[in-house]
Structures are given as structure tokens and as C-alpha cells.
């Protein structure tokens, strides 16, 4: 263990090589951890842990007993009806952006509806040793709810919280996640550059924030705070975090309304909306998809046609395909129609007409697809008594 002996000297050399001129003061003199001053408006509730409770008047989101959003998220589960008071809206701010055991949450927020108002409790961990107490305060706020509404909480916030509990020997009692990122992707993917909470908030809720900071800056601000204890640096972080939770509540209400068809004039992808509705409210889904198909969205028409077929609503399915084929020349629809006329209705000539139309269109199918169409053509000709071979 030779090199440990010369550690100080070696370190000195390393320092010179690394950051010239930076003279450190060594590791022997260090102040005992002291409680930093409370950030303005925050209350110390445990050593090194601060709390701030704010109430906001927000329109109470519809939380119907048979919420279509919950049905979309849990299509195969029978959910017991819950009141909107049982939802917990939560979000964490962390010291790192990737996962791993060295990444912890220093700011946690839980929002809930209480007596017609929206109440947000934020907990702030002002230094590492307070983490146990921080979790002790946070966990009851979460565990007395039934649903945890978050944005990407399923893959980020909840696993992180699970790790933190484990490392502090606490038990996280998990509740049903309602992660709004998933429906958000369905509704808005492709409409905006990304589906981050900030983007959705700006584009859909038309909410603008003063003094907001980019998320990547947050860990940096916290580490600066740990060094110089200037809470001013964190003010924008606190408000950013609170706004995120308010946005969660607003977004939940907006999504429910969209699914119920109570909201018009909001950008959304009709195909995604239709599919989201499908498990909860089929007639609403059909209506949305029809609307999409009518406006020329092929995905809507194809999905709707397939769904109608499986439901045994053939006549409606055929109408959808007819429209798609005639208006947009879609070959998938053409194939569905050919199958329908050939096998269901035994109307071979009608089927043949479609097949030949496909084969003679300006950009006919190629390769294997072309062969399949030609085989179908031969078969239909035979069945219709028009075979060339005679």
C-alpha cells in the first residue's frame, strides 16, 4: 500500500495538473452541519426539512365514477369509483438527470383537492442528512391517496422514490399510477416537437410562466445552494415545481373533458383520442374516428374499419373502406373490400373490379404484393367465370 503514504504529495501534484492555481484548504477544518436559514415563506418542519403549503382556486377536474381516462389506462381492470379528493398529484426535483443510487430528490410536491380548493404541499430537503425526515413527511401525503397522478412518474419519479426509501430503510406504499405522459403522447405526439410537460402546458393549456428555468439547470442550482446557502437561487426552482403540479391538475381535467367530448377547439390527434376513448366509451370513439376519417386521416379510417369488422358491424365497416378506397386510393381498404365482396357477399365481379383497379392504377403494387393481387385476380376471374385460360 505504498502510494497511500505519499497521498498528500500526490494529491498536490494532481491538483496542479488538474486546476492550476486553485489552492484548497484541506479536509481537516470543517464546520458542523448547521441549519440554514428558512427560505422565505417556508417552515422548518423537521431538521433540514422545510414545508410550504399553498392553496389555489382551480376548476375542480371532472372525476367521473367511470372516468374514461382511467379506463384508457387500465382497460382490463374494474376500478372502484373514487372522488377527486382521492387523487394525489406529485412531482420530484432531483440532483441528477439520470438514474442510479446517487441521485436523490431534494424537492417533492403533492397536490390534492380539498374543500373545492387545490392544495399543494411542497417539501424541501435543505441538506442530505435530513432525507429520512423528508421521506417521513412525504410518504403519508402520498399513501392516503388512491391514484398518483404524475408526468413520467412511472419510469422516473416512482422508481427513484422507491430507491430513496430503500436506501433510508423506509417502505413506499405504492398506489395506482395515473401517468399523464402516456395519454399525452397519444393525444399530441407529432403535433409538437416533443411531449414534455412544458410543451403541453404552453400549447394546450396556453399557460405562460414568468421567470421559468430550464429543467437541466435545477441540479446545478441546488448544488450552488448547498455551497453558499443562498435561497434566492432556488426561488425559481420552487415556483417551477409548484407550477408543474398545478399543471398536472389542470391537465387531468382537460384530458377527461377531451375524452368525454366536452371540449372543442383544442389541438389533438383524433386517431390517438379515438383509441384512448375506445376502452371507455365506444360510441364516442367511433364518433371521433369517423370525424378523423372524414377529415382524411387514414389511420382513423383503417382502425375504425377494422374495429367495426371485429364488432360485426360490417355494413358500417364497408362504408368506411369504400370511402377510403374511393377518396384516397388506399390499397389496404381495397383489399378489405375485395375480401368482403369475394368471401362474404360472393359478389365476384364487384371484387374483381376493385382488384383490377388496384393493378392498373398509376403506381401499382410491386413485388410480392403485386403477385398476391394477381393471384387474387386469377381466382376471382375463375369464380366469376371469366378465366382467360379457356
Amino acid at each position, binding site marked *: 500500500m505504498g*502510494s497511500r503514504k505519499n497521498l498528500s504529495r500526490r494529491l498536490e501534484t494532481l491538483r496542479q495538473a488538474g486546476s492550476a492555481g486553485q489552492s484548497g484548504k484541506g479536509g481537516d477544518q470543517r464546520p458542523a452541519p448547521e441549519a440554514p436559514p428558512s427560505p422565505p415563506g417556508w417552515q422548518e418542519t423537521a431538521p433540514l426539512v422545510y414545508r410550504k403549503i399553498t392553496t389555489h382556486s382551480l376548476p375542480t377536474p371532472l372525476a367521473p365514477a367511470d372516468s374514461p381516462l382511467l379506463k384508457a389506462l387500465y382497460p382490463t381492470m374494474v376500478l372502484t369509483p373514487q372522488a377527486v379528493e382521492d387523487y394525489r398529484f406529485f412531482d420530484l426535483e432531483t440532483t441528477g438527470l439520470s438514474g442510479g443510487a446517487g441521485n436523490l430528490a431534494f424537492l417533492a410536491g403533492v397536490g390534492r383537492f380539498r374543500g373545492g380548493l387545490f392544495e399543494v404541499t411542497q417539501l424541501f430537503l435543505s441538506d442530505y442528512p435530513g432525507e429520512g425526515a423528508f421521506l417521513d413527511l412525504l410518504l403519508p401525503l402520498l399513501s392516503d391517496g388512491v391514484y398518483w397522478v404524475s408526468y413520467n412518474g412511472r419510469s422516473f419519479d416512482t422508481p427513484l422514490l422507491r430507491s430513496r426509501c430503500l436506501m433510508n430503510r423506509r417502505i413506499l406504499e405504492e398506489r395506482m399510477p395515473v401517468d399523464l405522459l402516456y395519454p399525452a403522447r397519444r393525444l399530441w405526439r407529432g403535433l409538437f416537437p416533443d411531449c414534455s410537460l412544458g410543451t403541453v402546458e404552453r400549447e394546450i393549456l396556453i399557460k405562460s410562466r414568468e421567470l421559468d428555468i430550464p429543467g437541466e439547470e435545477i441540479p446545478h442550482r441546488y448544488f450552488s445552494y448547498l455551497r453558499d446557502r443562498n435561497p434566492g437561487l432556488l426561488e425559481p426552482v420552487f415556483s417551477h415545481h409548484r407550477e408543474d403540479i398545478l399543471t398536472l391538475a389542470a391537465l387531468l381535467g382537460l384530458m377527461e373533458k377531451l375524452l368525454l367530448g366536452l371540449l372543442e377547439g383544442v389541438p389533438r390527434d383524433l386517431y390517438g383520442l379515438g383509441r384512448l376513448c375506445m376502452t371507455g366509451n365506444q360510441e364516442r370513439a367511433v364518433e371521433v374516428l369517423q370525424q378523423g376519417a372524414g377529415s382524411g386521416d387514414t389511420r382513423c379510417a383503417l382502425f375504425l374499419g377494422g374495429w367495426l369488422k371485429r364488432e360485426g358491424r360490417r355494413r358500417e365497416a364497408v362504408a368506411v373502406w369504400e370511402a377510403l378506397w374511393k377518396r384516397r386510393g388506399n390499397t389496404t381498404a381495397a383489399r378489405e373490400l375485395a375480401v368482403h365482396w369475394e368471401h362474404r357477399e360472393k359478389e365476384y365481379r364487384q371484387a374483381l373490379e376493385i382488384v383490377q383497379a388496384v393493378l392498373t392504377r398509376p403506381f401499382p403494387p410491386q413485388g410480392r404484393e403485386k403477385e398476391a393481387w394477381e393471384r387474387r385476380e386469377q381466382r376471382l376471374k375463375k369464380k366469376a367465370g371469366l378465366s382467360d385460360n379457356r
Partner: protein
Amino acid sequence: MKDLSDLLRTLKEDPSFLSAVTRWEVIPETPGVYSDFPVLGRNRTLEPTLQEALEKRGISRLYSHQAESCIAADRGEDFVVVTPTASGKTLCYNLPVIDRLLRDPAAKALYLFPTKALSQDQQAELNGLVEGGNLPVKVSTYDGDTPSSLRVSARETGRIVISNPDMLHSGILPNHPKWIKFFSSLQFIVIDEIHIYRGVFGSHMTNLIRRLKRICEFYGSRPRFICCSATIGNPRELTEHILERPVKLIDRNGAPRGEKHLIMYNPPLVDAVQGIRKGITNEAQRLAVRFLREGIKTIVFARSRVRTELIASYINKSLANHFTDNGRIKVEAYRGGYLPGERRAIEKGLRDGHVHGVVSTNALELGIDIGGLDLAILSGIPGSVASSWQQAGRAGRRNSLSAAILIASVSPTDQYLVNHPEYFFSQNPESGYVDPDNIYILMDHLKCAVFELPLKNGESFGGPVDELLGYLEEEGVIRFTGDIWYWADRSYPSEQISLRSATTENVVIIDTTGGRHEVIGEMDKPSAKELIFENAVYLHRGEQFMVTRLDLENLKCHVEASQVNYYTDSVVKTDIKVLEEDREDRILGLKILTGDLLVRTQVAKFKKLKFQTHENLGYGEIFLPEEEMHTRGVLLCFDPEERAGAVFQGLDTDNQRRAIAALGTLVQNVAPLFLLCERRDLGVSERIRDPHTQWPTLYVYDNHPGGTGLADGFIDKLPAILHASRELIQRCPCGNGCPSCVGAQETAGDGNGRDHGPGFTGPDIMPGLKQAADTLLEKWLSGEADGLAERDEPWVPGKTSPGA
């Protein structure tokens, strides 16, 4: 076709072959030592279902070392098994582990292999045992190639998780909360091929084990270690250094062994005066072809990637001449840098007999299953006896004859070994050692450890680390508060730390011939500068390419198919600056300074060497930025105030230059044997008047960033190294110095040409090198007869223990 014994008989009657053989050793057949399934504590036997599974595979009794392992594991001992290749080593861990997993349905085991290829081998082997016997033990591989869909199930339900140190380092430990089930019931950690973990890699490994132990402790488990090693000088010591706890050694091999012939072969002299011998590349090719034609399955080991390609293509060419319409004999090249699919295909070809011969770098030295081979040809003897045995052991099956031919190159180490075959046969192989407190390595792992779990003040991490933690705090990556050190940075530290070498980056080699854009291989960045610079010839499985562009920034190298008659070899220039001295010793009247150095290397030009003859066809320029390395080194100072320096001053000016140049070559070539490293792990450079010390000075430094302790170990070994050097000079038959002893003008194709410091060029100083070195060493060493007695060690590297 003749069989191997016929062929060996023919060779024995061939005077021209025999005249080049310095030793022909026949290691007789050894019968096996068997044991019944052992009786364990409380009169228990191995689980009946496990015994049945073994019997289904035709195993009804064990070799003695396997039984011994079961008993040791049952007693809760940590142990290391050392037996030769093909001795049934894997059962030494598989038996006790599976036995435990069957008895305790919660128990888990972690297997660590140094390469992914070995992990795959082991997964297949375990699958055979477990599925064949219907044993309820789930075996999961968890490495960089595991798709994310399988990762969760490996973590949650894998009973045996097979991984590698790199994955443990960057994937598993930093995410340990996801592995709670696994770590809390982890009972065995198996480390196979532990002899690989020495030097820098071993120092990383020791720190990784420190981290692993911390995490296990956090989850309340205390797993036992089972390790396996190839034959090295100090397997127990090395294992104990890596695990930092005592272990039991199991080294009585119970497996039978077929007769084995070991032939030491020194290629005939072409020019005795200059010490030039027939080249090993052509000799290896000639011998391999002779055996391959008779259907003998042969492996040829070459010293470098380029050599591997050359020998393989020479063999294929000479076979093609004689078998133009007969493609039955298939010979492949094998080395790192091939795409994984290519390597798997070659391994499989060797196993199923489709490939008859292979030319490999030391990549195949490890226990990758390539089936039984009859003959191993070592084109150049590896820098360590341990490696030599590993490579020679690649030929040999349990019950049949095998042979190995060790061809000596003109390098001094090889010449020493080939002229001292008794050394090779009677000595234990070299020892392995680690320096886990290497400041760079320790600091890197300390960061990871704090990231994984905050460190209590005063908590030991292989020793006290307060000072280092203080340093890291100043750097702003950790925070000390409430008597605990916390990770306080947004980064994920293990991401930036590679266990294998200084850089984590690989250059991808892309074939752009005729507008193509196809990845054909890869290479680590430092090697890329020396091997695939612009206009270099790159050989890949017998195909020849010319480098058109090396883009180090984007880690890309574009090559195009080419048809030239030469290959390329770069010339490296080195410049050294002393940053800080921190130790001064006096040994044998020589002043030795130890300290931190800054070594700058630049690849500035390259040689074009003709295929087959290896003659130099000319030079080309290379334009690449220089590489900087901060490392540890020693300065051997010939201060005239001290005795060694006074002897040195006694030589005339020309002889001073000769003597120091010769000494540099000798040290470079002899020291690796004593330090268990490769030639390239040590840098040596001499200065007739060093600007730093003002004296004639020889620099010996560690060729790894941060140093690996080689320079410090060098001081302890210096007397032995000097005496061995002197003996080498005296025994060398050459006249005025040759590549075998003190060096000479570069021997064509040797590839060992060393870059002397400034002032050493020109042929004028070359005659007399040997005499100058001999005079220096004789006067210097004889004067210290008394002082030597207690420090001096015999010229027996295998017996010396490192840094004690």
C-alpha cells in the same frame, strides 16, 4: 495422413530441425485422481437431483480437486482453484453453487468472467447441466448485450447471474436498489480467470470488489468467493490481494493428462556475427503448414495483431499453392477487433472441426471453448511464463498426445528463455500483483462508491480515505455533512471510468471501397494512432485495406481495399518531463529518484515493410496530435558523486553513450520478467545528460496513466534485474552486441526496435555496445559484493514475490 506421434518421430530424426531445438521435453501422461461424490458436513451428500443431473452427463465420480472444492464451499471457506486447462475447473464452482441453490430456494450467485465470450460459454455449459437435469435454477446473463426486455427478469428471478466486471461497475452497482432481491440473498460470488486481474485491471478489480462488498453488507448478505486461476506464481496471494481477505488454495489437480511434448525452438542463425536469425513469422508458418497438411489441428499464437494477420495469410498462401483445388484445410486468423459474429463463427468452426487451424493473438489464451487441438505453435515466447503455459496448454486433450513448439524470437527475453530451458520447465510462472491504492484508480472508485452509498466519516475503503474525500469535496463532487460524505454532482461517475484502459473509446473501422459503408472492425484509440493512421495497411482476416482517413474526433477510420506488397509499422517518439520527485533511494551505489512524470508520445512516421521478406521499403509521414500521459516513473541517475556514477564516469565518452543505451535495452527486455508485465507496460528512455538531473539518467516509467505501481516495484527488483542483464550479456554468443542482448541496429521484422533518446542515433556507436555494457555492469556490480548479499535475489523471477 500421419498422426501426431508419427510426425513427432519424423521431426526427431530430422537433423536440421533438431539442430535448432534447445530442449525437447516430454511430459508423461498423468493418470487421474478420482473421488466419489463427497460427504459434506452433517453427513450430507450433494443434492440427489444434482447428482442425477451429473450422472446423466456421464459424470459418476469427481476429480479430487472438484470434491475438495465442494467440501471447502460447504465449510463456508473462500477459495481459489488452480489447475491446468481442461481439468474440469468449472465444476469446482458449479457443483457447490448449484447444490446450495437447490437447498436454499432464495439463494443467489454472481459469476464474473473477464469477457462476454466466456460468459456465453458458461451460460451454455450451465444450461446443459440445468436443463439436462431439470434443475429449478434459472441462469441469466446480464451484460451489455442483454436486451432490456430480459434485464428485469434477470434481476428479479435469476438465481445465477453471469456478468463481467465492467457491467458490475457501470450497470449493476450504481443501480443496486433495483437489485435488492439479488443482493440481499447473494451467497456466492464466482470469479473465473482471476489471474487476468493483475496490474491495472487487477487494481480496478480490487476496488470493484470493495464496492461490491459494501453493497452486500448494506443488504445484509456476506457472500463467499470462489475463484479460479490459471497457473501463476502466487495464485493465493493474488486472490487475497483482490478480495482483501484470506482464501484457501486448492491446487492438487486430479484430472488425467495425455502425454505432451514441449519443444523449445531457436530459429537458425542466418548471420552469426550480427546475431540475425530466421524470422519467427516465416518459421511459424513453415512449421504450421507441415503439420496442417497432415491433418493436425493447430493453433499458432502471434505477438501482435499485424503478425496474426501476416502468419494466417502466409499459411493460407502456401497451402493454396499445394492444394489449389482442395479447400479442405481451412485456417483462420483470430484477434480482438473482429466483429463478435465473426469471432463466434471461428470459435464454432474450431469446435466442430470445420476450421483446422487458427492463428491468434493472446485473445484465445483465455478459456474460450474451441475444442481440442493437437498442436500449439508459439511464434515468439510470451513475456511471461504463465502466458507461455496458457498458450502451450491450448493444445492438449485429456487422454491423447499433444505438442507445443515455442519459437524464440531474437528478443533478449526469448533468447534467454530458449537458452535456459531449465528455467522455463523448473520454475513457477511469474506472480501477479495489484496496486489498488493507485491514486487514480482508487479515486475513481471512491467516487463510484460514494454515489452508490454515502460513506460514513472514518469508514474504510480498503484503508483510510479521508484525505482523498477531502480532495473530492474541494473538486465539488461530494459533500461532507452530518459526518457523512454524499455524492453531490449530477453526473453518473461510473459512466466516465473504464476498467480496461485509460480510454473507453474505440475507433470504428469502416470499409468504404466502391461507395460501400460497412463496419468491419474496431480498435482502441491509442492503438489506432499506431496502427491505422492514414496510409497504413490494415489487414483483416486475410484481406488487405489501406486507411484513407482516420477521424479521431468522431472515432471513425475509413479504409479501402488495396493490393500493395507491404505492410506498415509506425515509429513512436517519446518525450518525458519530471513533474515532481517524491522519493529518493540508493541501491548498489546508484541514486534513484521516484516521481510523477509527464510522458508525451507522438507517432510521426511509419515504415513500409515488404511481405514475406519484411525488408524496409521506405518511410511515410503521420500527422496526428501527440498523446499526453501523467504517470509514475523512476530515474536511475549516474551521479558521479555516487559509486555507480563514478564507474560510469570512468568510461570514455563513446562508451558512456553505448553503455547507457545498452542498459536501457537490457532493462526494457529483462524487467518484464520480474514485474509480470508486458514489454509495452514499461517505458524506458535514456539521456546522456538529462536536463532535469544534469547527470546521465535512465528513465523507467509505467506506461499506464497514473501508474500501476510498476515503477515502485522496479526499485525492489533492480539488483536482480541488473544481475540477470549481466548474465544475459555474458551468455550471448554474438560478437559486438545483438538484438538478443544489448540491442543493435534494428533487425528486420523484429518489431522490437526501441526508440533511444536524443543523441543515440547513428551506426557509429553500435559496435562496442556489448563490451561497454559489460564493462559498466562488471565494475559496478562487483564493487558492491558485500552490500549485495542481503538484497540480491537469484535470477529466478518466479520465486520473487512482488513488493513485499
